[in-house]
């Protein structure tokens, strides 16, 4: 029997020690009327070679686009994952271990996560972070809950174009949180009025102002330092959701005065994997350390004087505080966090900044070429971009025709915005990374132009 090492002989001996005659007898504590009478209706078992063939055939029912022919972003981005990352993350000692309750035999994992925390703090310019949240959307919820607990206020103000799925997740969690979630709307060109924000803040009771950088449409909201000041003037916290590689080009959230930085860590060495597992990161200032949810790894001294690492500040967590805990998170994304750390070690300081700049340069090059074509406009004019932008494909229904024609040519030409915002039915969101070289972009743009003409 697969994965069960005991033999019939072993089982006989063990049953004798227990003092029962059969395996069924071991289940005598289950009342008869609750015992299943029939065998479960599941497909017949497969041997390993059959299973592999079966899995491969299911996989081949998908159409996968290699990273450089894929311009979809909107939360999950295609970056190159160095071979060394994939190799190291498959060490059995890491991935077959549990949450490191027993520090003495978990120093490897604990140190790896301590290093992950150090990386996240370095990137965000913050003092403290946790060992991971489920993904970027739940990290945002975690931040909102922190802001609620820190300020004891109950209003949350969302600036335009925070990831719409993250907003949905926040609304779902809000069934239990009872916060007032308010939106500031964008005008025609994607901008919002800072006076309107101030007006809302003046109402008081605001726990946090939430913004995303770059926002879902790929551009920098205008006047970020001003927004942060304004929020602080009214004693609200600022939560900033960031795309990790933008941090190679902008001042860190810490330096900007942000209170809580969150984001989706997937771009840092994690495959897109049909959207999971992902990696939520959340980082904050030292003074808010004890408001963070989930596992936190800290340095500790052993009896023999050695320096090591333990799960620390556990008094915040569900297994100690039960119903008084501020989050129920237990299992997190530890292995994904380690994968991210290995990735950051692999690309290093130099590589990280190169990738950041390549994202910018490739996106700007593509933007120039695409927006010059007849039939395409930027959805929003004159925006400062990082690696993603929104286009408007003129003519009703044209976006679908063009999208499909490019699919046929083997491109995944971004993400259609109508899926997220009914008012942007003709919108297309395209993302660029270091994988999209000039040659590839030229080829893509040639195809795009041809498709537009037909």
């Amino acid at each position, binding site marked *: 029997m697969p994965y069960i090492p005991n033999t019939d002989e072993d089982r006989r001996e063990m049953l004798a020690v227990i003092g029962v005659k059969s395996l069924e007898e071991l289940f005598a504590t289950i009342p008869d009327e609750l015992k299943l009478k029939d065998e479960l209706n599941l497909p017949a078992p497969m041997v390993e070679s059959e299973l592999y063939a079966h899995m491969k055939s299911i996989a081949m029912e998908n159409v996968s686009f290699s990273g450089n022919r894929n311009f979809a972003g909107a939360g999950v981005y295609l970056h190159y994952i160095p071979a060394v990352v994939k190799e190291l993350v498959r060490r059995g000692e890491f991935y077959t271990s549990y949450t490191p309750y027993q520090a003495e035999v978990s*120093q490897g994992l604990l140190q790896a996560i301590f290093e992950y925390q150090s990386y996240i703090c370095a990137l965000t310019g913050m003092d403290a972070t946790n060992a991971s949240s489920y993904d970027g959307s739940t990290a945002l919820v975690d931040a909102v809950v922190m802001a609620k607990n820190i300020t004891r206020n109950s209003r949350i103000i969302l600036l335009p174009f925070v990831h719409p799925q993250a907003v949905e997740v926040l609304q779902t969690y809000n069934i239990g949180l009872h916060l007032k979630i308010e939106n500031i709307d964008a005008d025609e060109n994607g901008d919002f009025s800072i006076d309107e924000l101030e007006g809302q803040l003046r109402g008081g009771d605001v726990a946090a102002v939430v913004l995303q950088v770059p926002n879902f449409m790929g551009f920098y909201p205008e006047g970020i330092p001003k927004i942060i000041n304004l929020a602080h003037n009214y004693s609200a916290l600022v939560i900033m959701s960031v795309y990790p590689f933008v*941090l190679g080009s902008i001042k860190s959230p810490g330096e900007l005065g942000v209170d809580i930085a969150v984001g989706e860590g997937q771009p840092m060495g994690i495959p897109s994997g049909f959207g999971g597992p992902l990696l939520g990161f959340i980082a904050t200032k030292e003074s808010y350390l004890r408001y963070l949810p989930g596992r936190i790894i800290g340095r500790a001294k052993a009896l023999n004087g050695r320096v090591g690492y333990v799960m620390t500040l556990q008094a915040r967590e569900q297994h100690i505080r039960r119903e008084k805990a501020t989050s*129920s998170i237990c299992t997190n994304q530890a*292995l994904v966090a380690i994968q991210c750390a290995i990735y950051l070690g692999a*690309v290093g300081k130099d590589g990280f900044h190169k990738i950041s700049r390549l994202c910018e340069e490739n996106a700007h090059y593509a933007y120039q070429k695409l927006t010059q074509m007849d039939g395409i406009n930027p959805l929003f004019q004159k925006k400062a971009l990082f690696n993603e932008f929104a286009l408007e494909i003129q003519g009703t229904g044209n976006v679908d025709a063009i999208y499909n024609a490019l699919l046929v040519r083997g491109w995944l030409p971004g993400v259609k915005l109508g899926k997220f915002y009914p008012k942007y039915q003709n919108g297309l969101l395209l993302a660029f990374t270091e994988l999209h070289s000039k040659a590839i972009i030229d080829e893509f743009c040639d195809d795009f132009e041809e498709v537009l003409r037909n």
Partner: protein
Amino acid sequence: MKLIFEKSKKGAGRLNVADFSGSTLPSPFVPKDLRREEPIPLPEVSEVELVRHYLKLSQENYGVDSGFYPLGSCTMKYNPKINEEVASIREFTELHPLQPEFTTQGALRLMWELAQYLKEISGMDEVSLQPAAGAQGELTGMLVSQAYFREKGEERPIMLVPDSAHGTNPASASVSGFKVKEVKSDNRGLVTVQAIREVVESLGEDKIAGIMLTNPNTLGIFEKEISAVSKYLHGIGALLYYDGANLNPLLAYARPADMGFDIVHFNLHKTFSTPHGGGGPGAGPIGVTKSLAPFLPSPILRKGENGKFEFFSPEKSIGRMKFFYGNFLILVRAYAYIRTLGAAGLKRVAENAVLNANYIQERLKEAYVIPYYQRCMHEFVLSCKKYKVNYGITARDIAKKLLDNGVHAPTIYFPLIVEEAMMIEPTETESKERLDEFCELMLSFSKAIETDPEEFRKIRNLKSYGFDEVDAARNPVVKWSPEEDN
């Protein structure tokens, strides 16, 4: 061991990424008021040093691949390698979640089929694969309950949780807006209708939203009265939530739906062998009965008339619990596991998990006290209290001694209703030889403690032990700082 940051050497890290224009910071594309001037202080290490660093770290870690891991409640079974292999097939790993559905039919088929299997295994009517972990599954189930009662126009603010429950249960109930009330276990460690009725009657029948139970409970004992409990609670209009952490011993033997549960979560990283990953990622799908299905998170899958799979949003959905559709690559592993074992294999899993636990329990029951001794399911809880009282040796001391002897310790100090608790779950993937080694060790400890407790306390093999957790929490250092290098 030195941190990766302390191994950094200027110019050592040279990743081969395509070259760019060569310009350095600040970036010309960034608005002036945001421009970064200085690079981020990331380390620079060569590839070979990176490999050695993580190899060394992995060697300082203990997983199921290293040895016996009887951590109760966590189901640390072997993680089959073929599952890792199939989860790394490129046509799975490289899928973008926002590709058009006709290009992801394989992924959707896999998820849809997995949902069918989980329905069959639990007896539930509909399944959502979205939750990322058990606790998020619990939270999802609680929010579904909130939405269900809101729809019915009933205000039921209270969720019942037994005193033996996992900590996530009260936390999830509370985060989702319920008030938590505890129900006491009886002297057999069981939840009874009588105990529930007492709590219910003191609070008001119409105030009770439901109860969260795991069955077998955290003592590893099957809740015999479960049918009567569900009949009573359904009678007052409340719901029953099944915490799936302990599903392993029931596979193909009994189903939560038949016991009267309305909502169940599965821990794919326990029952269905996907790796724990040092704390995650897991997957915590939930199953519900027909009346709760309209409230499941969005989106879920259906098979269209044309045989194509498609996502849709349930009619009265609570909304989304996370980005996209769930921890897909974990779902792939669980799917592969179920397809490998089939119905008969899953039944063998349950039988051998229960056999292994009872075997250890029988061998240790004289030397250690088992406060709720009876036929257990997949795990049992012993107490080290007599060693504490007579010799000053605690469950923690015994746990550390196990670590010192190369075995992972069981869960200690849980459930809270057993003093000096040690919760042992061997799982079905361990052989009799491993179980015997463990039993011999535990029995030798009992003798050693009685002979010379001071000698017993001595740690001989662990590199470091006895971390000062109080100081770590009082003066937290949670990241490396550049100043440390000077």
